[in-house]
C-alpha cells in the first residue's frame, strides 16, 4: 500500500467489495445525465408537443433517436443506483429490503427496455414522417 490514488487504494475493499464501483458509476451517469437530460428538457420546451407528427419526425431522426437511447440507458442506470441507496437507508426489514431491491431492478431494467424498444419502434417505423399523419 501507499501507492496509487486514494480511490485506488480503497477500491474493492468495501464490505461487499463494490462500494467504489457504485460511486464511480453514479458519477459517470450523473455526468452523462447533465448533457442528455438538459438537451431533452430544452427539446421538450421547444417542440410543438401537441403535434404528434412533428414530435415523431423529431424522434425518428437517427441522431435524436440515438441520443434518446443513450438518455434512457443513462437515466435508468443512475436512478437504479440512487433508489438502491434510498432503499438501503430507509427499508429496514431484511425481507422487505430484498423485495424492494428486486422490484427496483425490475423497474429499472424493464423500464429501460420498454423505453429503448419504443425509441427503436419510432426510429424504424416504415415511412416515419412521410405518410399523412406521420405514420
Amino acid at each position, binding site marked *: 500500500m501507499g501507492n496509487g490514488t486514494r480511490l485506488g487504494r480503497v477500491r474493492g475493499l468495501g464490505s461487499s467489495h463494490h462500494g467504489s464501483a457504485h460511486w464511480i458509476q453514479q458519477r459517470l451517469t450523473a455526468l452523462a445525465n*447533465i448533457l442528455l437530460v438538459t438537451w431533452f428538457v430544452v427539446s421538450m420546451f421547444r417542440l410543438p408537443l401537441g403535434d*404528434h407528427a412533428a414530435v415523431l419526425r423529431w424522434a425518428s431522426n437517427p441522431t435524436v433517436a440515438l441520443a434518446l437511447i443513450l438518455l434512457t440507458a443513462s437515466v435508468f442506470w443512475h436512478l437504479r443506483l440512487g*433508489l438502491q441507496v434510498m432503499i438501503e437507508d430507509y427499508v429496514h426489514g431484511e425481507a422487505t429490503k430484498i423485495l424492494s431491491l428486486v422490484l427496483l431492478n425490475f*423497474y429499472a431494467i424493464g*423500464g429501460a427496455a420498454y423505453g429503448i424498444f419504443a425509441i427503436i419502434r419510432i426510429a424504424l417505423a416504415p415511412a416515419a414522417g412521410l405518410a399523412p399523419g*406521420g*405514420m
Partner: protein
Amino acid sequence: MAGNQPSARPRSPHLQVYKWTPAMAVSIFHRVSGDGLAIVGGLMFLWWLGALAAGPDAYAAFLACVWHDPSPEVSTLHQITNILGKVVLIGLTWAFFQHLFSGLRHFVLDTGAGYELKTNKLWSTLVFIGSITATAAVWLYAFAEALNG
C-alpha cells in the same frame, strides 16, 4: 445480537432531530428531487414514449389525460388529471433543476472544495434560489408561448 429482537439502543438521529439549515436542506432535497424524478419522471417519460410510438390516437389520449382534453364534454376525471398533469410537470421541472444544481454542487464538493461554513451555506442557498428561478422562468416562457399561439 443478530437482530432477532428489537434493540433498545438509540437509533441514529434523523430529520426531526436536526436543526434545518441550508446545507442539510439541500442534501434532503437532493434525495427528494432525485427520487421524484426516478419514479414519477421515469414513469411519465415511458408513458409519453410509449404513446408516441403507438400512434396518433394513443398520443392524443395521452395529451387528453395529462395536458388538455379538447372534447366538448370533458369528463370529471380528465378535468382533474389536466390540472394534476400540469402540477406534476411543473414539479418535475423544479426537481430536475434542483437535482441538477445540487448535483453540480456535489461535483465541486467531490474535489474537496466548498466545505467552509460560509461557502457551504452560500452555495446551498443558491441551489434553491437557482432551481426556483429556473423553473419559474421556463414555465412563464412556456405559458407565454402557449398564449401567443
